[in-house]
């Protein structure tokens, strides 16, 4: 066998094995790798490099070495899933560096974390004053997570006592001009429905680059042809406006009529319409 054919075969087979191993170890980013995974990653790369470029070595030894280097982090991962104590040993534990607004100098020293490191990481979390920090913890991966004091936290609807309507994730129903059947099925909708909606917007599906439907079945589209203006969805604002108009009309009728009974009927219904408006406004926004 000529040398170059051997190298070709070795390279392709080792790349396939390496790819499968990396997939098997799971979805972790480089920064999240623990010490075992990090070392084995480097060693696996080295083993592959040696055995692809050097035809004197025995291929089977290379595969054996790779298998062992793969098995060790795999076993560590497996035991870590089962045992907390083992996990603490292999992955380390988080260290509290600021508690109740006070910096824990001893913990900083133990982690070899300088004051400048701490300040830098706090700044990257938008905390320029340590006095604004209630609690900060240094994770085993090296990132610093910060809990600001209550008065420095961003406002949420909860702080205003508001209850926004729950929103489910939107589904992408058209991609590159092609209908996606599975997302449609997730919304309990069918292709006919989508065709009708696109007809309503006066666009053909071939011209649609991307279309998304929210959990209320409202469609927003992006077209290939950006010159064409697509109307915003109007169904919900229109409905709210209709009900508001009816409520105002009923109030007007109540004022106009001279019959006491009819006036009461109009007033009662105007209140009902108001009730309906209050009920559905959060969902129509």
């Amino acid at each position, binding site marked *: 066998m000529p040398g170059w054919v051997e190298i070709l075969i070795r390279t392709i087979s080792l790349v396939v094995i390496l790819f499968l191993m990396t997939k098997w170890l799971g979805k972790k980013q480089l920064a999240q790798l623990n010490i075992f995974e990090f070392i084995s990653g480097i060693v696996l790369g080295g083993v592959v490099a040696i055995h692809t470029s050097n035809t004197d070595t025995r291929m089977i030894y290379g595969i054996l070495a790779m298998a062992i280097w793969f098995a060790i982090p795999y076993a560590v991962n497996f035991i870590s899933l089962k045992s907390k104590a083992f996990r603490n040993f292999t992955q380390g534990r988080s260290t509290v560096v600021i508690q109740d607004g006070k910096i824990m100098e001893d913990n900083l020293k133990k982690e070899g974390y300088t004051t400048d490191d701490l300040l830098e990481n706090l700044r990257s979390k938008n905390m320029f004053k340590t006095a604004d920090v209630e609690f900060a913890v240094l994770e085993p991966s090296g990132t610093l997570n910060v809990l600001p004091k209550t008065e420095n936290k961003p406002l949420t609807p909860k702080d205003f006592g508001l209850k926004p309507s729950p929103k489910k994730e939107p589904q992408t129903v058209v991609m590159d001009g092609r209908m996606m059947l599975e997302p449609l099925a997730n919304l309990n909708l069918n292709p006919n429905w989508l065709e009708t909606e696109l007809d309503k917007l006066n666009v053909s599906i071939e011209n649609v680059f991307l279309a998304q439907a929210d959990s209320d079945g409202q469609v927003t589209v992006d077209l290939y042809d950006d010159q064409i203006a697509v109307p915003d969805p109007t*169904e919900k604002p229109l409905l709210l406006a209709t009900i508001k108009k009816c409520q105002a009309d009923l109030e007007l*009728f109540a004022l106009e009529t001279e019959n006491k009974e009819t006036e009461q009927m109009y007033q009662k219904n105007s209140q009902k319409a108001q009730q*309906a408006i209050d009920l*559905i406004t959060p969902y129509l926004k």
Partner: protein
Amino acid sequence: MTVGSHVKGCFSSIKSAEASLEILANKTQSIEAQQAFKQAEQLMTEIKDDLQKQVVFLTQEEPTYK
């Protein structure tokens, strides 16, 4: 426009709102939204029933404008 035609216009708007609410209630995936839409639809139906009586009454009152 007469009182009768005003009331009739309002009546048809209510009917359209009722139908839209029903469509939304059927389309939405969230149970809370569905309940809110259904309740609103119920309210619309009640208003519609009352207005229908009024429309009938007004047509009798204003036979010329029927």
